[in-house]
């Protein structure tokens, strides 16, 4: 909301002495940060951010009340020339509890125009003057005092006026030119021919003030915030009036705003007051709120004199009575946000300043709870995969129906996971797989020239169920492109399906997941995180004795069939080797070349032995011979 510094100073003269920067800091400290400052119409205007609970602050007067309370300086008196009420000229009937109070006046307009300074004020606030005094005066009041008013062309009103619930199906063309079909919950102002305004939201086209208007009927009412908010939302009509009534206008301002409007029309447009009258009365004030001293202390962070609370709340317009250990507070009519003791304790703190809150660490009662095993497990898997060269991704939880269908799984229909209001078709269903998103990310990387893709994601996937989608944290992994070739020891070759099998096995899985070929040389798998082995709970593992004697290594270069299983071979070799002494058995090189016999490849198997004594060459030779014999039994041959 824009606030004009000159208009603010008219309400709180002490604000004029502040530099703009000081004023901005003061407003921010009260909870009204300033997003920007501009110079318009010869005055500085501040773009003030006002939270949704502070309808009372949405005007220059409202902002001035805050500044005055903080500075402990008086507001300028608000004393409009009083209007003497008389007999109603048009019958006004209140037929809904959503409008308990309706102050009005009937005036004949004379000649005259909106004063230039008012036009400049409205332009500075980006509210274009209409050059119709009845309309401009209403807008002027709205911005200065925050109470929305409305002027009807009185000669276009037919018969009595009633404030009532709309009948479903009734129509109204609003001031924006839109023909609206009304709902039964809408509160309307109606004449005997039908609705003429959406109460508290927008007037109707049929009774709007124009240059040919000669008589106006003024409206300065109080409408129930819930009713106004619901109507504004139903019709997507978010107006200056609905924002203020929807957040709670000051009922005590209704008659005052009417009087101010009458006075402006008399002085600007030479209007003649035919009569002013009020129907209904103020809505009942809420019950006073008891604020315990202990609450004031807890919220402030330290004990403060009770008198400080009394003083602060009175400065904000509250009526305060003191009882032992308690303040009994009646908030002012403009503060609908002060309903519970915490609200009032916050006000005392706010006026004192949040910068005065002491800084204390909370006492720790009882031992801290451990981190959940599943959480630690995901962290451990992520770190392990990152160390193995994989990049962790974060992709959207929703995908397109087509992408979901490409990975469809029986028993997980997309209908149970589909959004009713997606951002677009490509984001329409909560995904049942991570592989689709990973494949998109991998393809994007390939297009960008990456030679090898290693990506994984740990995120929920969704399974349709009768109670809604069930969520399951899933690990998805994708690998593809060209492996190696980036240093002199690693020859380049394409990533193979077998590489993913090895990776899956390396994660310690009891059961290998299905490896899927995803095109463009990409392979992937996914599995529930719950299927991964648990992260070790022990911080310090149990000591295992190790030998301090030297180990012995032997290499066996074997010719084996191209179809030979590495696992079969190593199991057979291990079976004939002393379990406690064999420390390692692994294939350290694979050689395939046309110089080798057809259908054969060479594997260099490395064996490492160690015991709690020095090993003798002969016994090692014996073990190696046994291992060779076991390999030969599977068709392997020692390479010449």
């Amino acid at each position, binding site marked *: 909301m824009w606030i004009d510094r000159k208009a603010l100073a008219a309400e709180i003269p002490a604000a004029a002495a502040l530099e703009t920067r000081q004023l901005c800091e003061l407003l921010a400290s009260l909870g009204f940060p300033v997003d920007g400052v501009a110079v318009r119409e010869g005055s500085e205007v501040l773009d003030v951010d006002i939270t949704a609970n502070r309808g009372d602050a949405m005007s220059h007067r409202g902002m001035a009340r805050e500044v005055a309370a903080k500075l402990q300086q008086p507001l300028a008196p608000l004393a409009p020339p009083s209007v003497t009420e008389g007999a109603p000229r048009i019958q006004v009937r209140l037929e809904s509890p959503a409008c308990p109070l309706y102050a009005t006046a009937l005036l004949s307009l004379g000649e005259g125009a909106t004063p230039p300074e008012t036009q400049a004020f409205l332009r500075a606030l980006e509210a274009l003057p209409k050059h119709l005094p009845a309309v401009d005066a209403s807008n002027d009041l709205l911005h200065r005092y925050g109470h929305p008013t409305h002027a009807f062309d009185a000669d276009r009103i037919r018969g009595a006026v009633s404030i009532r619930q709309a009948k479903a199906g009734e129509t109204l063309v609003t001031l924006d030119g839109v023909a609206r079909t009304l709902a039964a919950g809408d509160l309307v102002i109606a004449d005997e021919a039908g609705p003429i305004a959406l109460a508290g939201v927008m007037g109707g086209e049929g009774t709007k003030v124009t240059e040919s208007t000669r008589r106006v009927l003024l409206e300065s009412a109080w409408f129930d915030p819930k009713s106004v908010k619901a109507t504004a939302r139903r019709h997507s009509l978010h107006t200056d009036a609905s924002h203020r009534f929807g957040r709670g206008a000051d009922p005590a301002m209704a008659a005052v705003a009417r009087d101010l409007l009458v006075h402006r029309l008399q002085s600007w447009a030479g209007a003649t007051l035919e009569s002013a009258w009020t129907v209904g009365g103020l809505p009942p004030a809420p019950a006073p709120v008891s604020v315990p001293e202990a609450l004031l202390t807890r919220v402030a962070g330290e004990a403060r004199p009770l008198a400080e609370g009394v003083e602060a709340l009175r400065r904000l317009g509250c009526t305060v009575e003191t009882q032992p250990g308690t303040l009994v507070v009646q908030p002012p009519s403009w503060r609908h946000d002060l309903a519970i003791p915490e609200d009032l304790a916050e006000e005392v703190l706010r006026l004192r300043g949040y910068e005065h809150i002491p*800084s204390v660490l909370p006492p720790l*009662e009882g031992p801290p709870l451990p981190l959940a095993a599943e959480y630690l497990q995901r962290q451990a898997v992520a770190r392990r995969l990152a160390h193995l060269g994989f990049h962790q991704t974060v992709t959207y939880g929703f995908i397109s129906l087509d992408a979901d269908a490409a990975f469809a799984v029986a028993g997980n229909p997309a209908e149970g996971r589909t959004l009713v209001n997606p951002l677009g078709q490509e984001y329409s269903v909560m995904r049942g797989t991570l592989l689709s998103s990973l494949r998109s990310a991998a393809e994007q990387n390939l297009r960008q020239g990456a030679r090898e893709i290693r990506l994984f994601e740990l995120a929920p996937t969704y399974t349709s169920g009768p109670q809604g989608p069930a969520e399951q944290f899933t690990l998805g992994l994708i690998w593809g492109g060209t492996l190696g070739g980036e240093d002199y020891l690693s020859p380049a070759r394409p990533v193979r399906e077998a590489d993913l099998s090895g990776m899956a096995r390396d994660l310690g899985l009891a059961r290998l997941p299905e490896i899927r070929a995803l095109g463009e040389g990409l392979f992937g798998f996914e599995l529930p995180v719950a299927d991964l082995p648990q992260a070790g709970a022990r911080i310090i593992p149990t000591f295992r004795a190790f030998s301090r004697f030297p180990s012995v290594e032997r290499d066996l270069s074997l010719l084996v069939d191209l179809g030979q299983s590495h696992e079969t071979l190593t199991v057979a070799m291990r079976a004939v080797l002393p379990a406690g002494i064999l420390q390692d058995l692994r294939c350290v090189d694979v050689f395939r070349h046309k110089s080798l016999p057809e259908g054969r490849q060479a594997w260099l198997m490395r064996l490492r032995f160690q015991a709690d004594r020095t090993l003798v060459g002969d016994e090692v030779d014996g073990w190696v011979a046994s291992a060779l014999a076991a390999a030969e039994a599977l068709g392997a041959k020692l390479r010449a």
Partner: protein
Amino acid sequence: MEHLLPAEIIEAGRAFPEALAACGDLDALLRLKGEYVGRDGSHAARLMELLKAAPKEQKRDLGAVINGLKQQWEEGLKARQTELEAAKKQLNALADRWDPSLPPPVPARGALHPLNRLMDRLVEVFRPLGFHVEEGPEVETEAHNFDGLNIPEDHPAKASSDTFYLAAHPELLLRTHTSPVQVRTLLRVAPQLAASGGIRFLAPGRVYRKDEIDPTHSPMFHQVEGMLVGRGIGMQHLKGTLEYALRALFGPHTEIRLRPSYFPFVEPGCEVDVSCPLCDAKGCRVCKGSGWVEILGAGLIHPNVLRYAGIDPAEWSGWAFGMGVERMAMMLSQTPDLRLFFENDQRFLNTMGGLD
């Protein structure tokens, strides 16, 4: 005597030293050897033929000259052979030696996602204060997402323009914040609260709002919320905790500033700023010259939130805070475009998420 030798032999004698020096390897030397002292067709063989054909009285002198030339060539070739063999040996020795200035083999480089790294870091920061981690589903009920948090029925956040709803389950939505985890946790712990003396936890996770994708908005993003419930908990404990945590995160000289604000689930509510960690509060592009950066929203838990969970606000109180992970990551890393976090370009992930 010289006139008895043919011109080609005299020329060969002159050219030999130069030809010898030009031999760069043993193969070239072998070829030169054949040319000068080989059995057939060499310069030496031609000289022997001359000697045989020479008149008897000249044979002695001619023989002496020829022997002298042959000896000169053989000695020269031998010496050069020794030289070249030594050089080859030296070269071989070099070839066998590993050049320590070669770079090591490059292991594949991976990375944690920067958003996950930041969330992990936040957990590390709060862990010493006794906070554990609570998690909840991303598909939530309206009750957990709004009602339990004192968000009124007519709040605009409930509209389909702001929140994603499930077609087959109208009561379900994609959570708009991680606060439903607070509701779920409070409901669960309420019966044991007296025995435990309170609870304190972080709720990190993904949330969804119906925002178009642009450099500063995304329909999915991350939050980390924190909550503490105990006896006699007030604003001083919120400030003390945040001061500790934000200094651990941004540096020991970081200042924090609380400003009044409004959120339906806290009372009082506040925005929390930190002194700009990028310019030491001197004023820069990130803090828009103010020296302060807004980092999170916080406040004392609204009594209605406690009541919803069956916790008596007269006995228990607490505070909660919530921060946007992307916003903080963008600020700290000076990443100019939010979309980079979701494109998963390995080049970006490499620069942003290296392992500690």
